[in-house]
């Protein structure tokens, strides 16, 4: 080769080739990390598919979506078991949803919750949670009634979680989580730790309604259960989100609770 004053030496393809090969040889890719990432991507992809389809359908005007297409959930919902803790299907849903960046919306750690002045006067008690009068806004809550205790909280990954603690068995339960249609929000599914509960998502003019219903004839035994409404679309103000539940205890007592997801004092 010639001296460095000779441009020809540097334009020589062999020279550039050697330089770059040296860079490549100086590092070894982490094969395991790559395989793990591909597996996580694939899991997210599998989990995302039924949902993206569901959301598209919602966009095209279909009002009611029964979103039991998710493999694990469908099996779980159809399993005619009274066992409150089904082993297999639920974890499958949980794990498939976890590594998906597209599914997980970021919710601010400390959510700004704007208190909303209530204009409607509570008149007669609404017969179903989807009635026009929405209960549970700040200042209008009843988180505990009789033997049923409840709490709503936002987990940092775009999950609105309602925790129910029935002190006595419930023979009926109809829980609705209302996620208001803030700009960009999408419904990306639900989870439940109660095996005897089926769930659906419907899109209404102003909110996604996640409805968790105890199957007819089934019993929700005393304990603690978490019902998660999962949403995506990034940061949003969840200050108008509410939940409301109608239940019947084994003593044939009607229970009506409602609340929101604001941070508790």
């Amino acid at each position, binding site marked *: 080769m010639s*001296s460095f004053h000779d441009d020809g030496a540097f*334009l020589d393809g062999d020279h550039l080739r050697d*330089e770059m090969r040296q860079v490549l040889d*100086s590092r*070894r*890719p982490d094969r395991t*990390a*790559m*395989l793990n990432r591909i597996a996580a991507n694939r899991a997210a992809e599998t989990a995302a598919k039924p949902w993206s389809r569901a959301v598209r359908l919602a966009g095209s005007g279909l009002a009611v979506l029964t979103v039991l297409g998710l493999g694990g959930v469908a099996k779980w919902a159809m399993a005619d078991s009274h066992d409150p803790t089904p082993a297999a299907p639920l974890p499958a849903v949980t794990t498939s949803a976890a590594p998906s960046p597209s599914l997980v919306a970021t919710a601010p750690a400390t959510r700004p919750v704007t208190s909303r002045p209530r204009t409607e006067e509570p008149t007669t008690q609404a017969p179903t949670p989807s009635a026009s009068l929405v209960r549970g806004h700040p200042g209008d809550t009843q988180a505990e009634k009789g033997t049923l205790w409840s709490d709503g909280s936002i987990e940092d990954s775009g999950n609105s979680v309602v925790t129910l603690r029935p002190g006595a068995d419930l023979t009926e339960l109809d829980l609705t989580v209302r996620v208001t249609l803030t700009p960009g929000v999408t419904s990306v599914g639900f989870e439940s730790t109660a095996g005897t509960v089926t769930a659906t998502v419907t899109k209404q003019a102003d909110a996604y309604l996640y409805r968790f219903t105890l199957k007819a004839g089934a019993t929700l035994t005393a304990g603690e259960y978490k019902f998660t409404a999962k949403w995506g679309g990034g940061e949003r103000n969840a200050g108008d989100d509410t939940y409301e539940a109608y239940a019947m205890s084994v003593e044939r007592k009607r229970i009506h609770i409602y609340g929101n997801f604001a941070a508790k004092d």
Partner: protein
Amino acid sequence: MRDQAFHAFFERHHAELSGLAYLLSGDSSVADDLAADALTEVWKHWERVSAAGDPAAYARGIVANLTRNWIRRQGRARRGLQLLGLGGGGERDRSPDVPAVLDVRTALKRLPYRRRTCVVLRYAFDLSEKEVAEILGISVGAVKSQTSRGAKQLADLLQDLRLPDQLDGWEVAR
């Protein structure tokens, strides 16, 4: 069947694809992720990709696109971090003889992305002009001119970077 074929493809090409992402991004810590994401795309479209022709070419093109997107996203934040002396972290293989390695990486980063891609694919991976054209979706003529401009620029940059070290021996024999 598909998984088996894909796995074989992974074993054959993952190192090369990661290397491509490394040379294009200049960032060792992110190269594996970019290559893995590209491989996921290959897996997703495996039937079509393997039927239509060369999955490796498809994968290289995806790596080039993903890396370009990553650079765009990172650009501002990364430059800020580097000013604070926090950037460039995550290098796993900082061997004693890195100056030469750093030179090429630094120089490559200064090339416009299209040129950089052409030079890397042509020289580091020994692909023909026609192959590079297909991977990048540009004409052979564009590959030719981008590569020759890129190679010239890279050579000049390397010369500039090394000049101070080489002034001591004024008659440098290579």
